[in-house]
């Protein structure tokens, strides 16, 4: 069995990504991206566009590099000393790894929601208000109140917490915490939201709420989501990208990928033969 998997993956040198990597109206375009941890190459020559106001799902087996790739999009990998990135990553035509691009500004424009809900050990209000406060987005206390309330509303959490905004964010349930993290990200009004398996630690009901939320959010934001669940990718995304061993195997419309994949590896993965 192991031998078969090996022959499926290692033996095959992937030269080109199958499918259409070009979007009609790209918000971000990545070309020939390589990522190295010291000498180990984690991402191999990946090119892909994120279409404006669409949900792009990155799927693939564990360790395929999809999270690493996502974290390159707002330079979260900067904090890792041994991580080196090559290639061109453009946000609205601007190189995000250019010397003049300040990572602080970039991360305000490209927000991120993490796998494990990680609210600050502060009140619900302070959690959401933190981003606007550090960036000076609110002119007055009333402004800030409004930002907090609308962000919580957009994240679908306001009704549940409106009476206890001053209680601690860590006291919420897992699903509520994740929506709080989404509200916190929205409060900075980014252009793009990156989500790294946002529902993997949640139960099915909380997951359904988050998925519904993502569907609504794409009206205003461009979203890239890493997920382990193929059903989830099928439900919420318009474009799906399949990663394998650090390479981008196939990109296409979600319908196409799940009904009629062009690459053998993609088909093997979505039919559950490995992964």
């Amino acid at each position, binding site marked *: 069995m192991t031998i078969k998997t090996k022959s499926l993956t290692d033996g095959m040198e992937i030269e080109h990504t199958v499918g259409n990597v070009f979007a009609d109206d790209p918000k971000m375009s990545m070309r020939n991206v390589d990522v190295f941890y010291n000498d180990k190459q984690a991402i191999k020559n990946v090119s892909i566009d994120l279409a404006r106001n669409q949900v792009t799902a990155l799927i693939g087996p564990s360790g395929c590099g999809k999270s690493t790739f996502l974290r390159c999009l707002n330079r979260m990998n900067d904090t890792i000393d041994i991580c080196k990135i090559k290639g061109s990553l453009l946000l609205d035509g601007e190189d995000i790894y250019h010397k003049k691009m300040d990572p602080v500004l970039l991360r305000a424009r490209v927000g991120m929601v*993490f796998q494990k809900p*990680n609210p600050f050990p502060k009140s619900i209000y302070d959690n959401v208000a933190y*981003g606007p406060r550090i960036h000076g987005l609110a002119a007055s206390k009333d402004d800030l109140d409004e930002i907090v309330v609308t962000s919580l509303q957009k994240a679908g959490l306001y009704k549940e917490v409106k009476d206890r905004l001053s209680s601690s964010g860590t006291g919420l349930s897992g699903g509520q915490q994740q929506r709080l993290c989404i509200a916190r990200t929205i409060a900075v009004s980014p252009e793009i939201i990156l989500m790294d398996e946002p529902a993997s630690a949640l139960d099915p009901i909380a997951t359904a709420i988050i998925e519904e939320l993502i569907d609504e959010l794409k009206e205003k934001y461009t979203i890239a989501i890493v997920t382990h669940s193929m059903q989830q990718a099928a439900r919420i995304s318009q474009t799906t990208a399949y990663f394998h061993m650090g390479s981008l195997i196939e990109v296409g419309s979600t319908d196409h990928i799940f009904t009629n994949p062009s690459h053998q590896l993609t088909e093997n993965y979505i039919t559950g033969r490995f992964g």
Partner: protein
Amino acid sequence: MTNQLKTGQKALNMNDSSMHSNTDRIKKSLKKRNSKEKRFRLWGRLAISFGFLMVAILFADIGTKAYPAFFQHWIKVDIEFNRQWLSIEPSDSAVRPDMQALKQANYSATVKKSLYQMFPSITARGDKRDLMKLLSYSAEFKIEDLVTANPDLLGQRVSLWLLADDDVDSYFKSDFTAGQSSGRINDKQAMWLKQLFDSGAVEKRFNTLFFTNSDSREPELAGIRGALSGTILTMIIVLAISFPIGVSAALYLEEFAPKNRWTDMIEVNINNLAAVPSIVFGLLGLAVLINIFGLPRSASLVGGIVLSLMTLPTIIIASRASIKAVPNSIREAAIGLGASDMQVTLEHVLPMAMPGILTGTIIGLAQALGETAPLLMIGMVAFIVDVPTNFTDAATVMPVQIYLWADSPESAFLAKTSAAILVLLAFLLIMNFSATFLRSKFEKNGQ
């Protein structure tokens, strides 16, 4: 077909029996495991009770020894403010003497003669001297203060409570049989004291002087105030230097510094520094701070700097451990929102690490509080009578004061030593409680 069935049944049976024996085996080992756990719990309880017992014995011992030091005996004496005894010129009662005359007056003679008046039967010189020994020599200063504050007292006769000498004090505190000599009190003195005691002229009062006076050669006048002030001043310096430097160093090393050979070397050296004997820091203080920089000797400033150097590694090590324990997800959350490194560190990492940092700081300060060795080298073991009021005044600290008193020959200092230890422990407890209070405050914020 039947064969197959049989072997299948056999296998099933075997399986069943092996399962059965497994349960037995687990049951057997369970007994052993449970008794092991019980034994461990018993050991734990024994260890804790032993610790408590030792602490209780220590406190009971110190407490009973210190108890007498908190009380003092006073003797009521009828003092006559006689102009002749005071040798104030002119002796005419109509003329008010000026301040100069009052300052130069002979108060010791006044005390003596007033006392002789109370015991008219005493005539021999030696007896008179013994009589005078009943009172603390501070008596004359007390009446000087009274007269200079209120010259109208001249010519009057007033009953005053005066402090008894430490030997008299010890005599009353021991289980004395009235009129019998004991310790440094001879038969005659014992008789006089019995007279005084019977006439109600002896009173036991709470020893306020212990908390308001500085060190003294006379045990009845010696107090902890000077050493306490010295300790407070020194601790302020230690806290002001070692806390900000220690925490910044820890934050820089954990959050900003690249991980390479240099930072590894620094880490090893900080750990080594924590193990350096404290007297070495004293030598450094003497050689560098006093000899090169010319800072004053015996000053709490120098003591504070020396103790800070000793405390720094403890604070840095504890702070680093506590900063390391802050979950990375919090850093990522803040970075992901666009917080700068500085904001991540100060607004998220530091508050979450604060409880651990405070624990480390309190351990470091407690260490510094009890330290005498490095202070020997910079002259903070001197006999200092004045209460230090600023950082460059000559000062001593409580552990040094305890050492000095423990070394004194007068028996009354024995109780003072224990009392000073109690004050030191109280100071430590106050420090700990304030740290615990701050800690719980940060922890509450952190939830």
